[in-house]
């Protein structure tokens, strides 16, 4: 889950990292009032979960309250990369002497968090990493011991920084690391981390990502930031179909189902995890137009398979569905077969015609195949590869 800049900065401030004076507002009048309160030159920044704000005109400067109002009006209406801004951040404008970069992520191979620091911060940091690797330093640190502040001193010092700057910068990296660990983040980044004309340091922009798995534990801080449990913050908002399937999933603890909506004519009841990825690739390879991505597994109930099938068949343009999984271990073939057939019948359709193919081998397959036979549904056992089942399904909906 991505944070808006103003939320990330609120978390930084909470953890003792200096940020600019200002706040987030949702109207031009409030922007004008806040600009007047801050005094001097202010910067107004569109709050969207997207880069390229400066280029799009989402960042403007103002020297008066009236000018701030005018800019805020424009920014609040400006759509950037298909996103309307949530609000506008009004901050005191800083005069910057030098830009640094500080970031924390997990290194999946080392299985530890890694702090990354550069004395060439700013929007081109990724290029800097490639062209000036000697200006980018990294250090892994423990998640197990009390925060290893010395590591961040070593990190900053390794770029030849010393004196007061070393102490100030390593303290900020240390606090960023603390924020990262305390809030279930998978990315915490200050860029630029600016040194001002007076020598002090300030977080001018920040990106943060919280993993979904941590949201329960972080409920109180999310509440503080005004982020509700329904806000997914995916790269796009969930569609109505996706939300309805999520509701079906939540109603019944047996089995797990997740879907992603696409435009297509072939509905997919596919599983369980890796199997879904494999099947989806195969459907695409044979020119199929899947109406949805789907992961269903963990031994779902008849009801869950049935409701999923009904929701998929309600999607406009869905002609047939394919029911394909890898050889299943704990999911029962007969239960999925019963659920899918019930779902098709309750949708007023004929199972033999609507189910393009059913290929789920494994637990209770003999019972499952008997049910399918009774309804005249084409089914395949483990001797038919998953990709072959996908090919047959695509053929039936007039694929390539």
């Amino acid at each position, binding site marked *: 889950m991505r944070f808006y800049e103003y939320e990330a900065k609120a978390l930084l401030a909470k953890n003792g990292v200096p940020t600019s004076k200002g706040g987030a507002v949702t109207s031009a009048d409030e922007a004008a009032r806040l600009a007047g309160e801050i005094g001097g030159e202010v910067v107004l920044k569109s709050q969207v979960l997207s880069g390229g704000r400066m280029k799009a005109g989402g960042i403007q400067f103002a020297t008066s309250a009236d000018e701030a109002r005018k800019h805020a009006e424009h920014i609040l209406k400006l759509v950037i990369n298909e996103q309307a801004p949530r609000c506008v951040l009004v901050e005191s404008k800083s005069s910057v002497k030098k830009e640094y970069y500080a970031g924390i992520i997990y290194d999946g191979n080392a299985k530890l968090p890694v702090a990354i620091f550069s004395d060439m911060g700013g929007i081109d940091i990724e290029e800097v990493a490639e062209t000036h690797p000697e200006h980018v330093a990294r250090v892994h640190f423990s998640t197990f011991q009390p925060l290893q502040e010395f590591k961040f001193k070593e990190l900053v010092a390794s770029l030849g920084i010393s004196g007061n700057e070393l102490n100030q910068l390593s303290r900020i990296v240390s606090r960023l690391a603390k924020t990262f660990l305390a809030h279930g983040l998978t990315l915490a980044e200050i860029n630029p981390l600016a040194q001002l004309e007076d020598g002090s340091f300030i977080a001018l922009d920040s990106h943060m990502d919280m993993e979904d798995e941590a949201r329960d534990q972080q409920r109180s801080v999310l509440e503080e930031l005004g982020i509700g449990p329904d806000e997914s913050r995916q790269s796009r908002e969930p569609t109505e179909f996706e939300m309805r399937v999520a509701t079906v999933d939540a109603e019944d603890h047996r089995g797990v189902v997740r879907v992603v909506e696409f435009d297509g004519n072939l509905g997919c009841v596919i599983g369980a995890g890796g199997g879904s990825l494999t099947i989806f690739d195969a459907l695409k390879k044979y020119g199929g137009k899947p109406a949805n991505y789907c992961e269903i597994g963990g031994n779902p109930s008849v009801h869950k398979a049935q409701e999923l099938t009904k929701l998929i068949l309600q999607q406009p343009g869905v002609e047939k569905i394919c029911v394909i999984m890898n050889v*299943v271990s704990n999911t029962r073939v007969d239960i999925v077969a019963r659920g899918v057939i019930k779902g098709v019948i309750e949708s007023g359709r004929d199972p033999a015609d609507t189910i393009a193919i059913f290929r789920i081998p494994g*637990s209770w397959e003999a019972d499952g195949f008997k049910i399918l036979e009774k309804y005249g549904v084409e089914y395949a056992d483990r001797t038919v590869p*998953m990709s072959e089942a996908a090919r047959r399904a695509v053929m039936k909906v007039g694929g390539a």
Partner: protein
Amino acid sequence: MSILIDENTTFIIQGITGREAVNMARECIDYGSKLVGGVTPGRGGRDVHGVPVYDTVAAITKKQRVDASVISVPPPAVRDACFEAIENGIKLIVIVTERIPRLEVAQMVEYANREGARIIGPNCLGVLTPGKSRVGGMGGAAVSARKAYTPGPIGIMSRSGGMTTEIANTLTAAGLGQSTAVSIGGDAIIGSTYAELMPLFDADPETKAIVIYSEPGGRMEAQLAEYMKASGSKLPVVAFMAGKFMDEMPGMRFGHAGTIVEGKADTTAEKLTRMKDAGISVAEQIQDIPDILKRRLAGGGA
């Protein structure tokens, strides 16, 4: 021979009285595994399919040798259960539970490394050595597992539990048995990566070739490619990569927490290039794997 587990491996299930764990216990016993006990705090003194339940791990480890533990408890309880197992001297921890925060996984792995223990998972189905033992629920009911998995020379490592069985089944149908199959887990941080398990397979005289199932996300495949180049491993490796369609959808999450394209090195295209460069054969479809294996086993190149 095999890796990680064999017919003598004794293990417990932490959370044995849970719905899924009760099934798993039944399936492990039926398969012939040495399931010697289970732990559920407050349920000590009961039994699950004849397997004694204890309140704590210590209550069983002080009575007998325990080689491994399967952790099947709800996400908020996993870290403590893992620490409890390691603290009591268990060296192989299989974490089945999914949706554990990354920080907690990192902490468990760091502690395991310090104590000389190994973690498999989280979000995995466990380890299976055909005909000898199974630690975890991979393959389902014993009769199904026997149908899909047969003893032989191929090691399997897979980021998907379900696909481990699909691959084993495909190999079995082609007359290629398996030495040990490991469901390594689908999360962004896991206890044992391909490259970390490879030395075990390299040291196993029975294993003659490896199949890996791979997905987008993370740098585990790059790590394996580096291992293959640096170690001089003699084992031919065949990889199957799922999720090619995701390369065009960066930032979208499809299931496994590790399966999200966050950077350039995460894409399937990049991973395939690195693996091919390291002499790893790439199978376009699951059903192509047996022929590629047979060719590589006969001395053919990647």
